[in-house]
């Protein structure tokens, strides 16, 4: 449910100009607990993100940012066997966790690291139209769409591999510029462009 770019029906953005960094004490403590537990358990950021992404969509949309953190950290620790769901339930009176992962390490191919970029600034590219049922950082709204490279970034770890195989394998990385008309057809605003950061494996030449 996390892949929200372009989705409809969420209504107005509500801004609280007086909002403190943490709205309630449990949020600050959860932020700290999460940081400590992720480090202690050796869970990398893609694993953490994926655990948030695996929350039940209804729960994801009706809970706050730090409840996402809380749910994801508890899920990772349960999956690692550090804590038991019964321990959480007994103390909290019910503790909803994220759904199990749809893919495992075996579903992601081992790949060799690559650091030399295939594309250069001003190259036309198309985002590969792939649907991967695990963790990915290729937003749905750009899949199959044409854009142009506007920045070549340092090679970055492949999110799929890091999340599911716990390995950091580098791939060249780019900022790609899309015309809003390419993304949203007739419904697009004029003179608007969206720049999305994508690793090379998401892209193909046009």
């Amino acid at each position: 449910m996390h892949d929200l770019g372009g989705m409809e029906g969420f209504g107005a953005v509500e801004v609280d100009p007086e909002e403190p960094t943490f709205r309630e004490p449990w949020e600050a403590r959860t932020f700290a607990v999460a940081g400590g537990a992720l480090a202690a358990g050796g869970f990398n950021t893609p694993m953490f993100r994926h655990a948030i992404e695996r929350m039940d969509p209804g729960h994801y949309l009706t809970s706050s940012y730090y409840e996402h953190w809380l749910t994801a950290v508890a899920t990772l620790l349960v999956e690692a066997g550090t804590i038991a769901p019964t321990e959480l339930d007994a103390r909290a009176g019910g503790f909803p966790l994220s759904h199990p992962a749809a893919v495992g390490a075996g579903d992601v191919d081992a790949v060799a690291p690559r650091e030399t970029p295939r594309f250069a600034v001003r190259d036309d590219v198309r985002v590969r139209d792939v649907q991967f049922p695990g963790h990915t950082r290729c937003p749905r709204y750009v899949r199959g769409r044409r854009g142009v490279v506007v920045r070549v970034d340092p090679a970055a770890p492949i999110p799929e591999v890091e999340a599911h195989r716990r390995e950091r394998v580098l791939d060249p990385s780019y900022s790609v510029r899309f015309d809003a008309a390419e993304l949203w057809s007739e419904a697009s605003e004029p003179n608007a462009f969206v720049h999305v950061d994508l690793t090379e494996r998401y892209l193909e030449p046009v």
Partner: protein
Amino acid sequence: MSDDHGHHPRPLSDVERRARALEELLTEKGVVSREFIDRVVEAYAEDVGPMNGAKVVARAWVDPAYKERLLADGSAAIAEVGFGGPEGGHIVAVENTPDVHNVVVCTLCSCYPWPVLGLPPTWYKSPPYRSRMVREPRALLAEMGCDVPEGAEIRVWDSSAEARYLVLPERPAGTDGASEEELAALVSRDAMIGVARP
């Protein structure tokens, strides 16, 4: 268990009970220490994030060579002013001009340049902002009180990988005599996200 937990005059909410359960279990099992938790909470209690960003912006406004370095390598230029840390490894500064308005979003989660802006506000992390900013940026910016001239191009930056974005707003008119410190006071967090003008 920290003192915080003694201060609730009302029954705990569901999520508070869950947060407490997890904290208790992890401290009892020795996975995380109370000292670590308390120290982190204290460190972030006074979040001066946006003030850091404002100093960077003000410096760029008064020092053209610094601005050039900032636009060429954000993280390095920001480190010159003394800021860095988690979520700051690859900061990209994008410059507003009369013809270009930049705005930042993270559609997949809530990526944000912590060293210069602190932790993100709730609206930045909310489904309405994340879903709409890439699809109808001009309309949403207007709704949020930021009218972008019709002729100006809007550039939305979706922080979907390692880069974190800082918008360098235009220096307001009539600030020619202002000091760097006075200028920094004019720079709002929202202007550095791109949903306001300073």
